[in-house]
């Protein structure tokens, strides 16, 4: 054990915990089904149904295998592969997030560089920021009159704040020395912004983007449950209506996996722009 690396030991422990958890889950559900043999009366009364409806992990794994073997099938509006549903959700998240980047970063630069702009815009930001993004949904549906665009708008509005505030904070915190270096080298405003301020503030900006993408992925599930049609959020709700809990558990797992991947992408971007002083 001593010779094993820390990572190796942690990995083994993770696998052991997973096996224990799945084993306990599997056993408790098979016991229920086996142990409580139902009388004819109970079956007729529909008792015991609810308990056995929670699927054991083996069923979920079979479901996962079926779904992941062919993730992109499309058999009508209510029967699409998990890959297609996730692709819808990801594309909404990326469009909303992309729009938020276009707004938040230039505006954040402005607020960070100009104390007047900061003071003038701060009250608006403070009022708008704590609003639950889903609260915008009715207004968005009324004004935009399109479910898909409304979902994108909700993603936009929830991802804009962390990016805006972090950009402003990062830009305002750029060391005066570095700006002086740019000034003594006669760099214009635009060149100073791109060659000094942007790289200096990049780690803080990326932190904001990472928070935003995390929130966006949380919100898209709820938004799609409301707007319906397509997407992983709609899929979860649809399977709940079908009482297909195996699919619900499987899609919950997929939401987690995709969220983790999105976070990992931004974590690596963040690492790429981070510098040591």
């Amino acid at each position: 054990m001593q010779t094993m690396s820390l990572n190796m030991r942690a990995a083994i422990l993770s696998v052991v915990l997973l096996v224990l958890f799945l084993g306990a889950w599997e056993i408790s559900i098979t016991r229920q089904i086996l142990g409580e043999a139902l009388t004819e009366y109970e079956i007729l009364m529909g008792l015991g149904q609810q308990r056995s409806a929670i699927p054991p992990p083996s069923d979920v794994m079979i479901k996962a295998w079926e779904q992941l073997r062919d993730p992109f099938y499309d058999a009508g509006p209510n029967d699409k592969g998990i890959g297609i549903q996730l692709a819808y959700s990801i594309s909404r998240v990326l469009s909303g997030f992309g729009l938020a980047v276009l707004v938040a970063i230039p505006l954040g630069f402005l607020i960070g560089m100009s104390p007047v702009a900061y003071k003038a815009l701060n009250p608006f930001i403070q009022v708008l920021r704590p609003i639950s993004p889903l609260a915008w949904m009715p207004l968005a549906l009324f004004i935009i009159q399109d479910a898909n665009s409304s979902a994108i708008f909700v993603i936009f509005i929830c991802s804009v704040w962390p990016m805006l505030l972090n950009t402003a904070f990062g830009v305002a915190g750029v060391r005066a020395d570095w700006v002086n270096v740019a000034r003594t080298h006669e760099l214009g405003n635009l060149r100073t912004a791109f060659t000094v301020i942007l790289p200096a503030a990049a780690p803080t900006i990326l932190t904001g983007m990472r928070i935003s993408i995390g929130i966006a992925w949380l919100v898209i599930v709820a938004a799609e449950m409301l707007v319906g049609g397509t997407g992983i959020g709609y899929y979860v709700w649809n399977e709940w209506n079908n009482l297909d809990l195996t699919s619900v558990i499987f899609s919950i797992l997929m939401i987690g996996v995709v969220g983790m991947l999105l976070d990992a992408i931004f974590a690596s971007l963040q690492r790429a722009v981070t510098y040591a002083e």
Partner: protein
Amino acid sequence: MRKDFLSVERLSQTFPDGAGGTLTVFENASFGIKKGEFVCILGHSGCGKSTIMNVLAGLAEPTSGVVKMDGMAVSGPSLDRGVVFQNYSLLPWLSALKNVTFGVKARYRDWSREKVVAHATKYLAMVGLEGDVIHRKPSQLSGGMRQRVSIARAFANQPKLLLLDEPFGALDALTRGTIQEELLKVWSQTEQTVFMITHDIDEAILLADRILLMTNGPFARVAESVEITLPRPRERTEIINHPNYYAIRNHLVQFLGKRSKELAGQRSGGESQSPETVRIDMTTTTTDPEPAPTPTLLKAVNT
């Protein structure tokens, strides 16, 4: 006598003192620097050395007065005035080489990439940075190496005037010694005009052609301009044997220890305050230097 390349005329700086009044840091300060001259300015903290430096760099506006370079009044920062800051001010996300090319690219915008890199590499080599070291980030360099990069960046831009703001203040004594020698070497190769702030008397004597002495603030002024009558090239180990060395050193110690206080707080009364030139030369018998302090006092100062 050559005309001054840089002339500072009746420079005054006042700040609000926080109680409704104003605090005059210095008033009507005037002095000049000739082309190719290495001038150090010595004075206690708070006498406005850094303010003068920032005005020369164009990073701060004086309350009144002008700075003329080549007969033209300067305003705002310019590539003609390179600055080496005390805390190096390297951009931490760029390698040592990129930090230098950053400056070179800003100075010579039409140069090809190869030319920029070759020029930067040459100046890094002049301060003793060669090989893989130049591709390291500042965080991977020692304090001394960082300051070398900063000096290389300033010299590579070939400014008309180089401003050094206590460049060795944060370095240990041994590193400081090596870099001082490198600075002297680079300076003698480039014939750059240099204006440097320092707290270190020995450093000033080793490097400077002339030392400007400032009285304590408020109402500080450049009281004396002491010529360093030591032949060049100077070696740290040899100049201490020169008869002028301790005479000059004693004069400086006396000024900073006693006279800077005695002369402090004198208002200019609207007069332009130019420094009085002091020339101490023990090799000839005609001059009458300051009375030498006792050797025990000298030792106490040395430690």
